[in-house]
């Protein structure tokens, strides 16, 4: 008579097993156009996707972070249709992918509003971030310690900065490491000793962008290539895109898409 009880136990066990099994094999269902990669590109891609989906409600686009390198990896593994990359591809990488520049982003060097320094050379920047220059006095500022703020290892912004500024030098071990543009901004805003780097579009009025090698960090100067600290934002794929992914890509490169990106502070691809 406890057969009923037994049945409910076995039913439960079976249901659980089936659940786990389904969960195991359910990974590959018909899915959206998948973008994976740089957290710097991510917000812009999300914004583009949003614009795109409002205009084309039947389409489906999904954006994930993970970092530039992870994005490339995801493309290789077929987990992503498009990889988002916030740096130039390395010599090793570039033959494997087809990369499309969707926009360019200036890398602004930011300090606290109260900091009197207005211009720095690339060498001075390198010194400030490597720990060779420890006092603002040495670069014409106030007498006080320098606190460089960097991004986390693997971030596209960091990799671009290292590539464009640091050459072979290492970023100082005592540099504060923050995991987002917003966090860097918050720190520099409150700390007169701080120096950091971030996307030009995100600087805002609360921080001071430094002139680098006597060129102002502005959108025009990025567009005309006179401001050297700039990086491409890439959409990366392998082989031909799926039709729906291609449609999204076309939108991004269209006038509408480019204007949307400019409204968010980026510099158009051409």
């Amino acid at each position, binding site marked *: 008579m406890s057969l009923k009880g037994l049945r*409910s136990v076995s039913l439960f066990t079976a249901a659980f097993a089936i659940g786990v099994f389904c*969960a195991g094999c359910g990974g590959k269902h018909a899915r959206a156009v998948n973008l994976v990669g740089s957290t710097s590109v991510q917000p812009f891609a999300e914004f583009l996707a949003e614009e795109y989906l409002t205009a084309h409600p039947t389409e489906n686009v999904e954006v994930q972070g993970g970092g530039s390198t992870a994005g490339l990896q995801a493309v290789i593994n077929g987990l992503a249709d498009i990889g988002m990359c916030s740096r130039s591809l390395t010599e090793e990488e570039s033959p494997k992918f087809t990369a499309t520049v969707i926009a360019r982003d200036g890398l602004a060097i930011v300090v606290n509003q109260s900091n009197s320094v207005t211009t720095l050379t690339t060498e001075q920047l390198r010194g400030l971030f490597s720990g060779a220059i420890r006092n603002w006095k040495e670069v014409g500022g106030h007498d006080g310690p320098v606190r460089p703020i960097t991004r986390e290892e693997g971030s596209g912004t960091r990799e671009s900065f290292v590539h464009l500024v640091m050459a072979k030098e290492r970023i100082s071990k005592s540099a504060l490491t923050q995991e*987002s543009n917003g*966090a860097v901004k*918050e720190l520099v805003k409150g700390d007169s000793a701080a120096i950091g780097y971030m996307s030009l579009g995100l600087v805002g009025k609360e921080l001071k962008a430094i002139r680098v090698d006597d060129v102002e960090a502005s959108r025009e100067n990025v567009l005309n290539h006179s401001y050297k600290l700039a990086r491409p934002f890439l959409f990366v794929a392998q082989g031909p895109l799926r039709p729906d992914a291609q449609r999204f890509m076309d939108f991004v490169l269209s006038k509408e898409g480019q204007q949307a990106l400019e409204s968010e502070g980026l510099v158009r691809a051409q």
Partner: protein
Amino acid sequence: MRLLSPAQAQKVAVATMWTLAAITIGILVFIIGYILVLGLPYVTWSFLTEAPRQMGRSGGILPMIVATVAVAGLAVLIAGPVGVATAVYLTEYTREGRLTSFIRFGADCLAGIPSIIFGLFGFVFFTITLGMGLSVISGALTLALMVLPTIIRTAEVAIRAVPYSYREVSYGLGTTRWQMITKVVLPSALPGICTGVVLSVGRSISETAAVMLTAGSAPRMPESMFDSSRTLALHFYILSREGISMTNAYATASVLIISILSLNVIAYWIMNRFMRRVR
């Protein structure tokens, strides 16, 4: 050696203890007040029922609410039956021995493991090895494992609180052990079990590190268990850290805090009723 007389020491000590307690309560009130004062004015109906726009700078948090409910709900739905079954086994089917202490040891250790390790495990096991991807189900299974010890512990306490005489009576009336458990013991222990479940929901909702690595962060409405999603806690983290919108960050945190507050109140209320009934 004696600076103060015992009576003076008593006064000083009591005053110190009360100060410490007051500061602690002050911190709690400050944290909750801070978030609610800055966030609550922005929690509007449309904020709760709209999708975010411009990465969350405007719009609402509906997809995050759905994702949070889905991940936390599914986690408890999985951990609940497993946890209760474990508690039933420990209390009704075995005598204290090597096996029970082994199982308890496992649960206690599991309870102490930090969420980041659960996250890493969920990431390699559910997301990659089992191929579930960054998804609601990966997140839910990871959280299920995380809250399992809480459910086992509370269910065990609740089941043990059911008087032994109930079991004798049930046996005396000709029930099998299983009938006795399902018809007498579990119904009587239900409020206690519910308390554990409610607290586990609260813990799942506030978890960030483990969810970030397993459920992903796509700020979209999850349409199936295999979609990536962004929970409220993670949304708050991203909004505030990326400096996208502080008002929306505070509003999101307010929603989180209020949910957790209500869950705690519910758990406390159920527990009180339970205690009164069991006496």
